[in-house]
């Protein structure tokens, strides 16, 4: 129904056509391509995220998952404000992201040359997120075993904090990966998991949205535009739904 356009315009054609256009001046009418027909439509088609309802770890081994859960628990501890990063599902979120296209930076240019850039230039690492986790977790386990005879998950809160602080500052070196790079990777993904839509595995029960009063992924606030200085008390809404949808009684 829709014909593929011919191969790109050559330089010669472009020069010729622009010359013609100039020659013809304002009287020239552009012939735009007309596309008729409608794109394919399939019943039940949807663009939902991968793995959102698949149980079990999709990328991590059980051992890796245990360590990541210990890290996210330390980064976001349970307190009077919220449950911990672990209980909010941040490790599940990270696992799902690594299993998907993000894990291999499928959408980023990842061919060399790789050179250490300036701070302004941001991340210049050749490693993709999967490699960062695999190398970082292995290095961390090796470091903890060497110094405490335990994996990171076996450490107490103070040792965990000290270790993470050492990674952040680069005072603890890891085999195979720059330790601040690994730390920033995990910290960033943990925050994403804590605040992202629950459909991606984290932010369980919209815990962070309730914490900050974010009403969720709503399309449209037209009905609320006129309501100034009023508490709306909107029940947060995820792509997977809302507690308000459950029939009460």
């Amino acid at each position: 129904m829709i014909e593929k356009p011919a191969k790109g315009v050559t330089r010669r054609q472009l020069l010729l056509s622009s010359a013609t256009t100039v020659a013809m001046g304002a009287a020239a009418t552009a012939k735009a391509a007309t596309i008729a027909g409608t794109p394919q439509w399939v019943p039940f088609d949807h663009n939902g995220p991968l793995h959102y309802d698949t149980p079990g770890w999709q990328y991590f081994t059980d051992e890796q998952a245990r360590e990541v859960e210990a890290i996210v628990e330390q980064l976001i501890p349970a307190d009077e404000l919220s449950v911990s990063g672990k209980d909010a599902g941040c490790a599940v979120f990270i696992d799902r992201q690594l299993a998907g296209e993000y894990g291999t930076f499928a959408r980023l240019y990842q061919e060399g040359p790789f050179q250490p850039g300036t701070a302004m230039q941001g991340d210049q690492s050749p490693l993709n997120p999967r490699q960062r986790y695999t190398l970082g977790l292995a290095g961390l386990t090796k470091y903890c075993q060497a110094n405490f005879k335990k994996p990171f998950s076996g450490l107490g809160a103070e040792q965990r904090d000290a270790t993470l602080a050492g990674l952040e500052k680069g005072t603890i070196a890891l085999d195979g990966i720059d330790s601040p790079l690994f730390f920033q990777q995990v910290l960033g993904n943990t925050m994403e998991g804590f605040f992202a839509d629950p459909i991606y595995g984290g932010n369980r029960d919209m815990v962070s949205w309730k914490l900050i009063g974010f009403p969720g992924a709503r399309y449209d606030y037209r009905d609320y535009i006129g309501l100034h200085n009023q508490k709306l008390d909107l029940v947060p809404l995820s792509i997977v739904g809302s507690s308000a949808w459950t029939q009460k009684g």
Partner: protein
Amino acid sequence: MKASLSMCAGVLGLAIGYAHAGTGADSYNLVEKGRYLATLGDCTACHTLPGKPLFSGGVVLDTPFGKLLGANITPDPVHGIGRWSFEDFQNVMSKGHSPGDKRLYGAMPFTAYTKVSREDNQALWAYLQTVDPSDNAVETNQLPFPFNVRASLIGWNLLNFTQGEYQPDPQKSAQWNRGAYLVQGLGHCGTCHTPKNLTGGDKNGQFLQGANLQGWVAPDLTANNHSGIGSWRPEDIVQYLKTGANRFDVASGPMAEEVEHSSQHWQDEDLMAVAVYLKDFANPAEVPKPLAANDPTMKAGQAIYADRCSACHISKGQGVEGLFPTLANAPLVNNADASSMIRVVLSGSRAGATDAAPTAPAMPSFGWNLSDDNVAAVVTYVRNSWGNAAAPVTSSEVKNLREQLQVK
């Protein structure tokens, strides 16, 4: 130059004069008339597969009794109707008998086409002669036993068929009669919109009062104010049939196909005649009481509607003209049968694309992120809000339809 042109015209005029005298008919006009009549009858719906030669048949009709296929009606002598005479064709249209006294199944809507005038059938026949022959072989009868025995149709015809051309009602205007002729005849609106009896025949006492087929609801077309088109002005009906959308609704499902293939090409005066006729179809409504707004299902449905539906259909069901159907005071929403509503929520839906309105807006599928309970609650809420009142929907209805649709 001028002289030679006028001479040409003179010769041409002479030639036409001879043709007329020779065949007794202006064959060009007759064929063009037949082409338009074939559009009115939407013959392609059953007789042309997308991408295949015109009228070469093979479109599958899933009837409650089994499969029937649209025949090859090209002039091919072996696989088409090339050996038929006009009288053979007239018998098909008016009696449902094809040559060899073979009785046709009601899927070929001869119960409607019997109303078509002999004169119109002659034009149709003339047009069908001009179609390219196709040697596509089609086994039309794929019904299981005993329905595949065509003799069973003798009884069926006794029950369900009244033969005869449309007889104008002298009490009504010419426009009304044209509308009636089109709706009852070639338009064969009742084939989908009239409830069926157990044998699949029309319940003529309930003409155009709406029916369910292939998991869709063909809505009530009477002027019933609740679930019919009583609130539509004739102009609204014309716009709907011409463009696929009006200020209330958007054609979807089989109706979208009908609009795309057929009614968008109808002449405006024919569409207006149809509208005038349909609006004259008084049918008093029995309006049930809506569910109370504080009913727990309604509360849950309201929350789902606000979060999932209101972005397009607007918070009070207003919709957006030409794009998103109005759900407030909407006849289709008030239909006793909620199948179409459940279906479009589960699987999504695509509107028809017409020359006048080529956008073909689509509704996304919510089957993946609304549970059966959610769908039941939100459909129940819509059916009992903003002036609507209709029976609530249960989650088992949703479950059944979901299974039925996903098998296909």
